[in-house]
């Protein structure tokens, strides 16, 4: 069955009645949901005075303080490269490993399979505050402090459980005959992964990738602990530092936030469909 087709499928013609009340409700809800985005946009071009006298209504375009965006870029720009580096590596790494793991769980019922699966699942239940200290000493003993590699490794490890969990369900649903046919052709496990699993689970991989990317993008706890040098800061830390200022220039802060989201906006703009489709597809399983 084609999931793309499922989304695009026409709705039942049997549903009668006018749609506008639905639209109204949906639009009202969406407006509230989009409020933070709106605030970020409109405050980013205000100075403190304009913001404090009138926080809610945007300024007319003539009064926009565009230098806010420039200083926002200056404040936060240097961190973007680091964040991209960490987020891309962590995403690729964690998905790669998760695919292997999920393939193992989904395709074969090897001895100890259940035990291993339990090992994965129990992790979801553990609260992690006190773990930070041992984790930190671990990173210290392997000499990974004050380096972006630590963040990448943590990103990879942190994503495993959730990704393996979702991918497994997905791979289990791939028709068995595809694999059997491949095996008869003498395909190795890696070839099966490449030729069957990846093409068949493109949307969910895309979705997981975007979620992992978002997670790495917004993470601030570990970077805060691990990174010392300003040149290594990722966006999460940068924003926390910005938020800790006592002299608040709201316009500049919001502009910095906006700058921090621009790469995400771009990615979303271009992969929106993939993302939505992936979420839609992956979700059917559970």
């Amino acid at each position, binding site marked *: 069955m084609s999931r793309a087709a499922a989304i695009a499928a026409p709705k039942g013609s049997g549903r009668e009645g006018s749609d506008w009340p639905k639209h109204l409700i949906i639009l009202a809800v969406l407006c509230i949901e989009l409020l933070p985005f709106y605030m970020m946009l409109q405050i980013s071009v205000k100075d403190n005075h304009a913001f404090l006298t009138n926080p809610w209504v945007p300024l007319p375009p003539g009064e926009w303080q565009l230098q806010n965006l420039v200083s926002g870029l200056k404040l936060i720009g240097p961190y973007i490269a680091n964040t991209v580096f960490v987020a891309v590596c962590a995403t690729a790494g964690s*998905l790669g490993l998760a695919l292997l793991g999920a393939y193992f769980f989904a395709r074969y019922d090897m001895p100890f399979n259940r035990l291993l699966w339990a090992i994965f699942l129990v992790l979801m239940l553990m609260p992690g505050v006190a773990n930070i200290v041992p984790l930190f000493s671990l990173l210290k*003993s392997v000499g990974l402090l004050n380096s972006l590699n630590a963040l990448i490794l943590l990103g990879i490890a942190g994503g495993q459980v959730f990704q393996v969990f979702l991918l497994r369900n997905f791979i289990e649903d791939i028709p068995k005959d595809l694999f059997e046919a491949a095996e008869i052709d003498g395909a190795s496990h*890696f070839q099966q992964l*490449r030729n069957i699993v990846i093409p068949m689970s493109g949307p969910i991989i895309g979705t997981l990738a975007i979620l992992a990317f978002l997670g790495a993008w917004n993470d601030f706890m570990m970077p805060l602990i691990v990174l010392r040098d300003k040149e290594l800061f990722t966006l999460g830390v940068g924003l926390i530092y910005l938020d800790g200022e006592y002299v608040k220039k709201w316009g500049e802060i919001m502009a910095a936030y906006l700058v921090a989201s621009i790469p995400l906006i771009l990615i979303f703009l271009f992969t929106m469909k993939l993302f939505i489709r992936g979420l839609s597809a992956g979700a059917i399983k559970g």
Partner: protein
Amino acid sequence: MFLSRNHSQSRRRARLWWIVCAWACAGSLVSAHGSGPTSAREAWELASQLRVEEAHRWFAAAVETGQESAREVRFGKAATLLTLQPKTEANLREAERLLAEIAAFRPADDLAVEAALLHARIPHYHCLVPDRAEALRRYEAVREQFAGNPLAELAAPRIALLRIFGPGPDEAKRAVLEELEGWAEGLTDPVARREFERVLGEGWLTVFRDDVRALPHFVKMCELGVVRRPARLDLFLRTAEMARASGQQEVARDFYARFLEGSARDNRARLVRDRLAEAGVSVPAAGEGER
């Protein structure tokens, strides 16, 4: 790209993992053994700077190899075992054993006394559940066995601590305090004497709120001298206040004055000047700092 690695690459990846793990283990070992002390002197220096782990490692190794002066090294091992983290019963027992052994050395020397004192402190402050009776017994043993060694006199203030602030009815405490007061003259070491006086003074003050009986002990302490400046100021002030409360204006005035000499940056100075003024002495405000 990433997902289409072939089998051999995966094997390489697995090997890489082992390398990473091995490197991690080696890394922690290296960092543990990277720079250590090379002599007992250096190990003691480390111990005095609270770098107990490194110091202990050296002492423990030196005990094994039997190098350097054996008793000192054993003492080092025991002393560092007391603060080695995590603190375990086994460590304390081991320290206790070593210290008892060092303390038993005859003819008794300073090291033996120190070991005996430390031996007494284990049940007093180091065990998870303190055993005050045992600590008292050990301190008293130190006092008896090493009578004549000024170092051993440091057991006296500890005995006073344990007996005054131990369990028992107030009247028994009075007897204890009075009995202990008889010991004071016998102490020759000024530090032991000073601390002994301090415990007695605080004893009268805490248990009986008796300024009159506490005062002489505080005066004696002032005579013997306190090293740290803020503590010295506090002591002068407390002595003066106690003298004031027990009606000895002369003494009070003297100690108030001594307090004021060093109190340019103390917010109690004006209060003290008021006290002096009450007693008919006027002291001009001192130059306020250096501004």
